[in-house]
């Protein structure tokens, strides 16, 4: 992108409308405090199926899915408009697992049959598809995979363990990475009802739902390959790029909401007989958060636009968006707690949920320093 004309970074009228509708719907129906309710009631689902179905009816889940698979056939940019709003209230619904990981893996690497079977159900809110790639212990390096796929008579036999698989407890399909040669791995579609699959639910700080997925000699056919045999690294990288941008849009929303709540709070809260928002120390730090959010908005919009219109720019801009949004969200969430004072560190107040999500999102799909390293490589230094 450097040196070229900048892409359009504005929302068109329909997108503005979509943003507004989503904002109002989510604020009213899905406030961040739900995370506490799901946690404390030990809800088996961990999010609202009804809400997910309603959003499907509104067309939001199929925004980017092509019309031939019952979607609306719009762009990734449009999806990001909704993702930003979902991020404001930290929605635990399966946006990341299904719309970012599963759907993008299918769109980028799925066979016609896989797409036909799964995408319409995703758009309708009925089908959940996730990707299991995390094995732990390698600090975000997903290129070395311990899960193995051995060739067998009818296809492959998978053995290994994936951790923190988002929405793995409910997913209808789990796409997993498994080593198929010394050099590379392959992505395989697994149906969790198959024998040899064990799912154990996990509890994380951020209210997103996840599970350990254990594979013990799970037999699958060759038609379960997603993408190319031994082509997993490249495909997963492309899926992560898109997922990073979508997650960055959610982080942008989370930053904005944490910041808006904080500004409102420091205007109201009085100490020393005046609103604490009149203190310059807090004012200047608020301006810093405001500034970071403004910069983040620009990079997220540019990266989302590139996915639809300038594929060559995607690696650089995805890394830029993920690194920037990760730093901004964590910064905004920390400042939000500090400016709320004691109430900010209580479980009773919702603001504490923002730092938990910020930390989780920061660690997902590569940390800022990993993305900076990639940026440097892409720029030849």
């Amino acid at each position, binding site marked *: 992108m450097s040196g070229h004309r900048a892409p359009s970074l504005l929302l068109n009228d329909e997108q503005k409308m979509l943003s507004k509708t989503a904002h109002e719907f989510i604020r009213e129906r899905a406030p961040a405090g739900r995370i506490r309710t799901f946690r404390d009631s030990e809800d088996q689902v961990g999010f609202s199926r009804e809400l997910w179905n309603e959003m499907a009816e509104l067309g939001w889940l199929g925004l980017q899915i092509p019309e031939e698979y019952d979607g609306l056939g719009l762009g990734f940019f449009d999806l990001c408009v909704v993702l930003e709003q979902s991020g404001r209230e930290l929605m635990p619904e399966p946006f990341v697992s299904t719309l970012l990981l599963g759907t993008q893996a299918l769109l980028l690497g799925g066979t016609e049959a896989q797409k036909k079977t799964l995408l319409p159900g995703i758009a309708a809110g009925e089908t959940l598809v996730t990707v299991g790639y995390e094995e732990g212990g390698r600090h975000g390096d997903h290129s070395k995979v311990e899960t193995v796929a051995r060739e067998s008579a009818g296809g492959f036999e998978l053995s290994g363990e994936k951790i923190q698989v988002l929405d793995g407890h409910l997913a209808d399909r789990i796409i997993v990475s498994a080593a198929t040669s010394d050099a590379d791995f392959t992505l395989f579609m697994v149906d969790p009802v198959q024998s040899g699959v064990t799912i154990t639910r996990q509890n994380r700080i951020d209210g997103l739902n996840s599970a350990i997925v254990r594979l013990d000699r799970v037999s699958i056919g060759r038609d379960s390959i997603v993408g190319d045999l031994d082509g997993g690294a490249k495909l997963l990288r492309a899926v992560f790029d898109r997922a990073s941008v979508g997650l960055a849009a959610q982080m942008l929303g989370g930053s904005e909401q944490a910041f808006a709540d904080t500004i409102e709070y420091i205007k109201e809260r009085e100490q020393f007989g005046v609103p604490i928002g009149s203190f*310059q120390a807090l004012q200047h730090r608020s301006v810093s958060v*405001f500034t970071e959010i403004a910069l983040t908005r620009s990079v997220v919009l540019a990266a989302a636009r590139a996915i639809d219109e300038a594929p060559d720019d995607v690696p650089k801009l995805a890394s830029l968006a993920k690194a920037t949004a990760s730093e901004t969200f964590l910064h905004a969430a920390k400042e939000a707690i500090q400016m709320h004072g004691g109430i900010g560190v209580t479980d009773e107040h919702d603001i504490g949920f923002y730092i938990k999500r910020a930390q989780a999102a920061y660690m997902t799909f590569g940390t800022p320093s990993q993305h900076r390293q990639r940026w*440097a490589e892409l720029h030849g230094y």
Partner: protein
Amino acid sequence: MLLKYGNHAQRAQHLPGIARGEVRWCQGYSEPNAGSDLANLQLKAERDGDEFVLNGQKIWTSHAHLSDWIYCLARTDPNAPKKQMGISVILADLDTPGITVRRIDLISGYSPFCETFFDNVRVPVANLVGKENEGWTIAKAILGHERSSIGRSIARQPGSAQREVVARARKHLGVVEGAIPDPLLRDEVAALGMREEAFHLTLARIQQGAESGTPGPEGSITKIVGTELKQKRFELGMKVAGVQGLGWEGPGFDDDDLEYTRDWLRSRASTIEGGSSEIQKNIVSKRVLGLPEGGK
């Protein structure tokens, strides 16, 4: 300023010379006790018939030693109830008797700035711009214009800051191509490159918003971000040069490095001049975030 606030005679007298590039002007706003708190200015202008008599001092008048005319903010009513009132904009020919100009040396060794002293300087009342005692409005308008243009004007080409630092790193670390060997340094350069890209995309977004008739509030932060970016660029450019960046003049240092070092020193002023970053943040807090007025 003259275009918008000058009267017909003033425009006829001055604009042609400015347009032809023959007559140079400098800005006389700041004073020793009126920097961030500009409204505290004290340059006195007393009416005496159809002349003003100016007494006092201006500082930071850029290029005053090379200029022909100065436009000053002066106090025409010392008894006004608020310090923002009672200020007027007055034009003066720098050749007028009583004006002396002294150059200020900056830490960079450059001296494009001056102190300008006024000792019973007489200028015709016709040199008053706008209405007497209502100069503050004009001053604020010009400052606003200056601030919004600073962020944009230091922006340069997208990617140029990163390229500059990478080139200096290659030169001084002797790595012709490939990765910068020090991973921590590379991380800092990448952080700079990302910041630069984010800044340019933000400028583009502001521009697009303005063109589509929906300007957002982000314009207010470009000076803060742009000047910090500029300083970071020079800091990193100095860091990669190691001791070769320590030259002031003379043997053992090449011209590019000597100039770069001077520019690094000059860059420290960018977060002070044209309204310091702190003052910008005060303005954004109030005007954009709507935070309450507090201790100044």
